[in-house]
């Protein structure tokens, strides 16, 4: 036995569906479940396209597209029960929070800069979109731990990126989750880039999933562009958390097909060779091809799904665009549960100033 850990061998992520949509193994997902997931994926793609176009016209704010990561996000979300489970998102998980009950128009309003975009309906178990990288992870552990303390059923899934995994909050959270056995799943989307910083400059570890061992928790490494594989890994991680067996770190290996956000220009740092390695890995194409093979989807069905997605995006963007611009009074809303004299005086003075 050597005293030093030897260099580790390369490892392959779990894959169930090959890039042509053929099954490599067994899946527990019914055709109906895959169809439902496909619709969330297509809805997100439709929204991305429409929102990008509106952004170019100056009618929509800076936002981060999910393009390329739809199977990763939807595969993770499809293992959760919105009635009892929680999501602590970062900012690139649109279909997960939609499936959990967040109205699409609120998401749009958020990225249009409207305070109403912060509204989370009372029965929707999500934390706000997180901009400060990894800051949601300690909170996710706390919610999960607290639910278990109170004997309440519920697993918390928190999304994090490869870049955010360098933050102290990431390490502190996985450590605490391991110690408390909180029912939490850390879903790390390794999409290759933290804005312009490539994965290779983010960590020297073989995989991000390998880090799980250091915290004494389970780790899983999965092809993030394979809906069936992501779902399988997440179903297992959620079941383990629910059974009191503790947290899991899932690394979902995916590819950010677009820019970091609409203000970013990836042509400055993503090379043709980078793209070439991910040619033909569009998760939507893979799932569509699978569904056509099983016979669950044909042209007519595809057209129906597509029409529903377009209608929903049009409806939500219509609501968002018709929402009156916010007034100054919104500055003071929801700062304190119990406001006090000086705060109320400021509010009144601010409103008076706006009217003058």
């Amino acid at each position: 036995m050597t005293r030093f850990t030897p260099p580790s061998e390369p490892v392959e992520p779990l894959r169930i569906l090959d890039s042509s949509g053929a099954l490599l193994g067994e899946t527990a997902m019914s055709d109906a479940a895959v169809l439902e997931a496909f619709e969330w994926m297509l809805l997100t793609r439709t929204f991305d396209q429409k929102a990008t176009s509106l952004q170019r016209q100056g009618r929509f704010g800076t936002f981060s597209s999910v393009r390329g990561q739809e199977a990763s996000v939807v595969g993770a979300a499809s293992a959760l029960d919105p009635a009892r489970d929680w999501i602590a998102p970062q900012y690139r998980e649109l279909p997960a929070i939609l499936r959990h009950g967040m109205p699409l128009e609120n998401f749009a309003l958020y990225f249009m800069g409207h305070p109403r975009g912060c509204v989370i309906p009372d029965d929707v178990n999500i934390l706000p979109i997180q901009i400060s990288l990894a800051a949601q992870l300690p909170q996710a552990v706390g919610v999960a731990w607290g639910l278990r303390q109170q004997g309440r059923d519920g697993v918390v899934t928190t999304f994090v990126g490869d870049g955010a995994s360098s933050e102290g909050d990431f390490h502190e959270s996985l450590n605490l989750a391991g110690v408390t056995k909180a029912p939490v799943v850390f879903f790390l989307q390794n999409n290759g880039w933290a804005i312009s910083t490539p994965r290779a400059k983010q960590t020297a570890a073989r995989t991000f999933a390998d880090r799980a061992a250091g915290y004494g928790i389970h780790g899983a490494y999965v092809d993030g562009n394979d809906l069936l594989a992501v779902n399988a890994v997440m179903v297992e991680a959620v079941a383990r958390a629910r059974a009191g067996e503790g947290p899991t770190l899932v690394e979902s290996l995916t590819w950010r097909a677009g820019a970091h956000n609409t203000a970013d220009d990836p042509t400055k740092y993503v090379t043709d060779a980078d793209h070439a390695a991910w040619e033909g890995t569009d998760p939507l194409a893979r799932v569509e091809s699978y569904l056509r093979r099983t016979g669950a989807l044909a042209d007519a069905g595809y057209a129906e799904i597509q029409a529903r997605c377009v209608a929903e995006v049009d409806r939500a963007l219509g609501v968002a665009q018709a929402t009156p611009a916010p007034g100054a009074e919104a500055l003071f809303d929801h700062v304190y549960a119990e406001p006090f004299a000086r705060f109320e005086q400021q509010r009144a003075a601010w409103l008076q100033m706006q009217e003058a």
Partner: protein
Amino acid sequence: MPVKTMVEAIRETLADEMARDERVMVIGEDVGTLGGVFRATEGLQAKFGEHRVVDMPLAEGVIVGAGLGLALSGLRPVVEIQFLGFGHQAFHQIGQQVARLRYRSAGRHSVPMVIRAPFGGGVRTPELHSDAFEAFYAHCPGLKVVAPASAHDAKGLLNAALDTDDPVLYLEPLKGYRLQRDEVPEERYVVPLGSSRVVREGADLTIVAWSAAVQLALQAAEDLAAGGIDAQVLDLRSLVPLDVAGIAAAVSATGRAVVLHEAPLTGGFGAELAATIQQECFYDLLAPVHRISAPDTPYPLAGIEEAYVPSRARVVREVRALMEVAP
């Protein structure tokens, strides 16, 4: 009425509240078996179990962040940061996350949590422990910041902090933990957040202070009285909310104000008070508002901390000088 030290009052209030409300939970470094490095949580784990009084991994950020999550799940966590000087490691969670989660979720998530942290100097701690950076936190909208100076207020403010659905940073004076002893009623009571109190009546000037500086102000007032200067002492008790009306009434009655704190001068909470007093009491002021603070230098090693923290003699000297300013 029983006389207690501040740390006893805090410990007993925590025990009472944990017995009264099973949602109350205590987490922090060394709070369980040891009972906290200042023994503020001594005996709580034996009484309430290790699921309600939890020794946490040594990482301030996740202690506060997980506390936030516990609050969202329906519990009422009391989080101990061992020394506010180490609050820097948790500042992003306190200032950016805890303080504004209610705002960022448009009211969906309130954060009913109390963050307890001893602060301030005068007890010869090792380096980096004694910083009095309350102004950092008072600057974070969404957070309430209180700093009791007596055992009586320690109980009443802790109860108030546990009652509100807003997050509260509850600052405890290192120096006053055991030195400060006063009467604490047995029954539950609340000192409202945002209520100051006049600790000593006086006609010639008002010394505004909080936490350990209140005792310093009272001692200086004794010396001043011997020299014929009648100082009023106002204990702020709460930085956010700030009792603007109480401060204005106290200062207007005397016409002179000294703000006393042991944090550095520039950007300290004394600056906020000086501006507020100037605005509220301009026509009653007989002299400029004067600040007595630590210098704009880091908290020093123990060997020279007495030169750093304002002393009784310095307060007397500077108040006397202020009294000579002609209106």
